[in-house]
């Protein structure tokens, strides 16, 4: 919406004017500005860059795992992860607990993608994942315990907070369909190993900030680029094939760089703080 995009809180809609957008998307995805990206609300409150990206990755991992347990389609899980990433460019990890944000993003995405899930189910699945990570009791929660109420209230509070934070723009255009289209256009869709690999890159990329930095056609091209390199499928280079899909070489290189960094990083440490209170205590001990 033109009127609300003037507020600086909302991730901006890039600098491509809507009329020039020629991809399949009717609306471009919201992307963050340089200021929003370098000085996140959490960073301003003393959360280190590496800790923040670990927590973001952990949140995405939770969403992916919860989505599988809730039998949600990948589209819903991906939307939820993008919403979570966008959310923490507006709100701080110290103000909204990671677990609550995960619950809110997943619950909202399930509604937005027309695959709604009931609150008790979402709460119990998150409780299970949390307990498993902490090594606690994983038995389902009784609906009348304080623990259950806390999780539920956190979910409901974050749901509206998320909408306000994102300026009510919950539109997420995902690159999966585009990627398959591009493979088909180049006659590569028959190569299942290639398609699967590109698909997996798009899944993994959800843990990096690329979905809030680039438009979906760039992500689709980057996934195809990495997959063809890995599977040793020769591609036209002069002129480079991605020019047909309006992507640029340096954008693709940047996305591949983020993925490379993701794979180079060691596994997430086991004792990451899951709530704002835990995070505050963790920062105090540093």
């Amino acid at each position, binding site marked *: *919406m033109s*009127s*609300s995009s003037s*507020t*600086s*809180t*909302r991730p901006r809609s890039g600098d491509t004017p809507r009329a020039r957008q020629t991809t399949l998307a*009717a*609306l471009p995805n919201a992307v963050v500005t340089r*200021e*929003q990206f370098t*000085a996140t*609300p959490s960073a301003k409150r003393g959360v280190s860059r590496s800790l923040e990206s670990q927590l973001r990755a952990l949140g995405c991992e939770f969403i992916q795992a919860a989505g599988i347990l809730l039998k949600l*389609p990948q*589209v819903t899980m991906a939307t939820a992860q993008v919403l979570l990433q966008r959310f923490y460019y*507006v*709100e701080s990890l110290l103000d909204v607990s990671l677990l609550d944000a995960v619950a809110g993003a997943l*619950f*909202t995405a399930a*509604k*937005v*993608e*027309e*695959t*709604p899930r*009931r*609150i008790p189910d979402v709460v119990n699945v998150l409780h299970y994942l949390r307990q498993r990570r902490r090594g606690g009791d994983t038995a389902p929660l009784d609906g009348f315990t304080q623990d259950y109420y806390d999780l539920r209230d956190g*979910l*409901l509070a974050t*749901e*509206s*907070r998320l*909408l*306000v*934070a994102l*300026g*009510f*723009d*919950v*539109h997420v255009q995902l690159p999966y369909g585009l990627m398959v289209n591009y493979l088909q256009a180049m006659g590569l869709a028959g190569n299942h190993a290639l398609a699967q690999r590109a698909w997996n890159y798009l899944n993994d990329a959800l843990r990096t900030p690329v979905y809030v930095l680039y438009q979906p056609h760039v992500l689709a091209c980057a996934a195809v680029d990495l997959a063809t390199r890995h599977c040793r499928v020769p591609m036209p280079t002069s002129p480079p094939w991605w020019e047909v899909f309006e992507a640029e070489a340096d954008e693709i290189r940047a996305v591949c760089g983020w993925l490379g960094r993701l794979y180079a990083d060691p596994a997430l440490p086991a004792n990451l703080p899951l709530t704002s209170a835990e995070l505050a205590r963790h920062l105090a001990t540093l």
Partner: protein
Amino acid sequence: MDVETPDTANRRTESRYRKDRRVGEGTYAVVYEATETATGRRVAIKKIKVRQQKDGLDVSALREIKALQELRHPNVLELMDVYAHKGNLNLVLEYLDSDLEQIVKDRSLVFTAADIKSWMLMTLRGVEHCHRNWILHRDLKPNNLLLAANGQLKLADFGLAREHADLNCAGRMTSQVVTLWYRAPELLFGARDYGPTVDIWSVGCIFAELMLRTPYLPGDGEMQQLDVIFRALGTPTEEDWPGMTKLPQYVQYRAYPKQPLRMLFKAAGQDALDLLAGMLRFDPAKRFTAREALQHPYFQNSPRPTPHERLPRIDAAKARDEEIAGVKRKLDALLGEDAMQLGGESTACQCLCSYHLLTFAYTATRLASLEDGATTKRVARRLSFSMGV
């Protein structure tokens, strides 16, 4: 650079508007007339009621926001802003004071064939835009086609709208959509993988209603609705509509004969009837798409559609005066009856009497609110419809 917090931004949006009066109330929202203070522009604010937090925020509100953000078209209601206030969602929309239902019901207005063509053209343009963006409206009816002061028609109320592109969702949409009289036969048979042509059926019903000046297929219940449809258009056979008998809630109906539309629509042109028949085909695959309907010769043939500034419109002040006069007459009549019956002794008489007192009280409130200007015609009409007064 310091970034504004979401809360201040939200409050800033809220402070740009001033709610003036309550205009109407739907199942999930209250509508206010408001002013954008900087420009003095009239807007409507739709406040979504928070249901007792069982499922969190209302899905229809999310659907409406999502659909309207994506759709920008002269024939689709504009969503100007959204803000939250005390946990309620507020949608700031264009303010439009009348709708097509009021026009159809206002007996003092005379429509020409050109007027009907103009409304149909604007409706179909809006619908085509939705469908091109893979959005189904799923609740088209005259009441949801709002009219701007300059006569432009705009589709409104996207609370049931949804995207239909997702293949993973195919076969999992609910058939409980669209107001009964405008509901396509495949929905009545419980189809769950329907497409944009459900909206076209509704547009067909609206077209017929514009010509007849009364609802075309007014059924009393889901079962009876199909009976009404088949009585009007003839019961389809498996040949007319392959796959019909395999629909989840298919039941056999009486075989009514097919009658030419000409029987009912005596004054309509052949091209108009042809378009109507195309939009009311039983088989969703054979029914016109929005684009096919727009390309129909009906829209090229004379008469040319009336320019929207010159379409018949409701005189708001006159309409309210008439309604007040009507209610007053009713009150006088009720007073007379009660005076007579108050003398009666029997229980039956007393029951009747208290019933009349209730009606009286209700009618009096309605009159008060009308004269107050606190409620518009639209609410009053909705209430009178459900209470049967």
